[in-house]
Each structure stands twice: as C-alpha cells, then as structure tokens.
C-alpha cells in the first residue's frame, strides 16, 4: 500500500472535516503507521495549549460613520459658503441702511448716497462780467514794453561783465609770464650742473669697468692655456698607451701565427714520415 496522506488531508482529519471514505482510508494508514498518528496527536495537544489564551476584552470606540449626505455636502462646500457670506453681508448692509433712512439720488452725473435727509451743498456764485477789462492791443503794447526793458537790462549787465573779465585776464597773464621766466632761469642753471656731474660719474664707471674686464680676461686666458696644455699632455699619454697596446697585440698575433705554422709544419712532417707512400699518392691525387 503506497498511500501516504498529505498535510491537507491530515489537517482535515484533525478538524473532523474529512469525509467517511477518506477517514476510513486514513485510519487504516494509521494502523500501519502508528508514529504518524502520534504526530497528529501532538498537534492536537498544541491546539489544546492554544486554547489557554483568552480573548482580550475591548470596548468598541465610537466610530462616527454618518457620512455627510449629498445635500449637506453641497451646503458645506467652500463656494456656497463664500457666496452665502457675501449675500449675508449685503443683506446686513441693506437692513442697516433701511434703519438709518437712506437717500439715494442721481442728478447731473452725480450719484449721492446719504442717510437721513440730504442737505444741499452751497456753492459760491460766480459773477460773469461781459465787458472786457483790457483790449488785445493794450496787452501787446504791455508785452513789447516789458521785452524792451528786459533787453536793455541784459545788454547793460553783459557789458559790465565783459569789462570785468578782460581786466582779470590781463592781470593773470602778466603775473603768470613773470613766474614762468623765473622758473625757466632756475631750471637752466640746475641742469648744467647736473649734466656735468652725470658725465663725470659715467666716465669713472666706464674706466672701472674696462679695468675689471681686462684683469678678468687675462686671468681667464692663463687658466685656459694651462688647461689646454694639461689636456694635450694627457692626450699624448693616452695615444702612446694605445699605440703600445696595438703593438703588443700585433706582436702576440705574429707570435701565435708563427707557433701555429711551426705546429702545422711538424704535423705535416710527421705524417709524411709515418706514411710516405699514401701521402705521396694523395698529393698526386690533388
């Protein structure tokens, strides 16, 4: 029997929700597998343990769920409130005005709102005289006279100012030229002395410079020539060394060649002596 109940079946059995056929099948399984029944009993014990927890007592708080109806929402909306408040203010104003006895009148482009009885405003009477006081000719004469007087006054003032200005300019010119002459004299004297001093100083500086240069160049030349001589002698020595080495090398190579020649000659001689016949043949074969 390969039947093995799944968790779903076991739980249904545990809670008594399994049908009769399945229950019988499961009980048969438990007979063969008592350890599974033991596990299920342990789960029952857990369930019993959980029962030890009691419910917490709680009082339902007042939850206001009376939602506003459509009508009340309309009356509570901001726009309606604003309009209503304006209307109420206007109504209040009207009532107050009514109580105070308003007088509203409109005449000659003038709107008048007043409370109680309106009192007419007294305006000053303007007297209009049709007869003219001055003719246009007389006014023209007055203007001309005034202009002539004004021109004369300006001309007089201008002449006085001109004279004053000329006098002042002449005075200034005279004083300035005298001052400039004095300054020029002082300046020429001062410049002659300064030039002499400057030239003398310049000559002295040049002389000293030349002296220094000559002394310095002589010393430099001496040092240079000495160095040149030393370098030349070193060069000569080096050249001599190299020549000697070359000579030695060549001598040694000649010596080696000579030795080798001797050795070869000896070998040839030895071979000739050892095999006189063969050697002769071979020599002839060549």
């Amino acid at each position, binding site marked *: 029997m390969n039947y093995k109940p*799944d*968790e*779903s079946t*076991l*739980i*249904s059995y545990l*809670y008594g*929700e399994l049908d009769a056929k399945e229950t019988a099948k499961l009980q048969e399984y438990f007979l063969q597998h008592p350890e599974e029944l033991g596990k299920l009993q*342990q*789960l029952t*014990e*857990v*369930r*019993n*343990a*959980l*029962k*030890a*927890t*009691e*419910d*917490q*007592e*709680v009082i*339902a*708080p007042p*939850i206001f*769920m*009376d*939602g506003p109806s459509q009508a009340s929402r309309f009356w509570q909306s901001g726009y309606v409130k604003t309009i209503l408040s304006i209307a109420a203010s206007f109504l209040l104003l009207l009532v107050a005005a009514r109580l105070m006895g308003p007088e509203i009148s409109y005449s000659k482009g003038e709107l008048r709102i007043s409370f109680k009885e309106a009192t007419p405003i007294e305006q000053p009477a303007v007297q209009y005289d049709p007869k003219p006081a001055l003719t246009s000719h007389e006014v023209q004469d007055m203007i001309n006279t005034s202009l002539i007087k004004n021109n004369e006054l300006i001309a007089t003032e201008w002449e006085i100012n001109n004279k004053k200005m000329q006098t002042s300019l002449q005075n200034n010119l005279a004083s300035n030229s005298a001052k400039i002459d004095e300054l020029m004299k002082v300046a020429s004297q001062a410049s002659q002395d300064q030039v002499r001093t400057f030239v003398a100083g310049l000559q002295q500086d040049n002389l000293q410079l030349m002296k220094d240069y000559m002394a310095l160049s002589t010393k430099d030349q001496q040092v240079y020539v000495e160095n040149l001589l030393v370098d030349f002698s070193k060069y000569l020595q080096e050249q001599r060394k190299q020549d000697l080495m070359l000579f030695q090398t060549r001598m040694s190579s000649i010596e080696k060649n000579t030795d080798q020649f001797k050795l070869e000659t000896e070998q040839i001689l030895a071979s000739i002596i050892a095999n006189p016949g063969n050697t002769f043949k071979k020599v002839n074969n060549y």
Partner: protein
Amino acid sequence: MAGTLLDIAMMHSDALITRAREGDKNAQGKLVQLWYKRIYNFSYKFFFDHDLAMEVSQKTFISMHRNLEGLHEVTRFRSWLYTIAVNYCREELRKRKANRSVSLHDLRPGESEESFAWEASSGRGENPERQLRQSELSDLLHQCLMELSDEQREVVIMKEYEGLKFREIAEALQISENTVKSRMYYGLDGLKKILERKNITKETIGYEL
C-alpha cells in the same frame, strides 16, 4: 467560539448586514459593536500589540462602512471583513518593518500601567493569583505565535481563535483551501517545536491553569 449571546448574534446577523448594506446607520453601528471584539482580538494576536490592534480594527470598520455596498453576498460577510483586517495587518507590518522601531510596550507588554492588559483585567472578582498565571501563560503563548511566519500565524489565528472555516480563510486570504490547510499543518508543527523549546508541556499548562 460559539456559545455566548454575542456569538449567536454574529452567526445570525444576515438581516443586519442587509440593512447595513442598504445604508441603515443603526444597523452599521450594531455590526461594529458585534464584530469589533473579534477583529480586535485577531489583530491583537497577530501583532501582540494593543495600539496596532486598535488602529487596524478602526481602519477595518471605517473601510467596512465605505465599501459595504459592494458586498454582493451577505453570507460572505465574515470572510470579507477578515480580508479587510488582514490587509490592514499586512500594511501595518510593512510599515513596521520599514521603520524598524521597537516600542517599549513591545519589549515587555503587560508591564506598563497604561497597557491594555491592565485596563482590560476582566473578572475582578476572580482569584488574583490565577489571573496572573493566566495572563503570564497567555503572554507566553502569544510570544510563541509571534515566532511563526506571518502567513502561518494569520491562518492559525483565524482557525484556532476566530473559528473560521477553511473555505472562509481561503476566501479571506484569496488562496486555495489546500494551501490554507498546508499552512495550518506547518503552523501547528512549528508551534509544537517552539513549545518544546520553551518547555511548555501539557502538564505546565495544567499547572498554570
């Protein structure tokens, strides 16, 4: 669960639900009175926290009031109500996980003078020692429940404490009945191991009670 007058009223509240669905404010108020304790206890066992349970309960009933018109079958009211409660529980859980803050009440629930356990000490005429032991055992079992995964915990609470049928739990959680039963099995198995680890046996519970 059945037995008290309240439970009987809950079982036969179809007419009340119909009236409430039609907009009867009085009927809606009565529904709240009838179901508030159940939803509160479900949330309390889920969080083991009075404040969170109160918040979830209030949100659940406000949501119930707003959406009751959309409930097509009156017979499914119970699973529908628990669906709302579970969703709010999960929402609070997500918030709590995001905040990662632990209140002092969470650390030692029941010790604060302002705690719910103090306020709701029912049966003042009973033996105080027995009440204390009962309270301790209750806290201990709550702690065991809190060690389960959220999915297992909600199924165990709905079945063991709220007395919902497997079909109703499946409807409330919008999963299959088999999945509900599987979660129930592993939930009980997990609880068995937790109780063993904490040395809470049948004898201990018998002694405590």
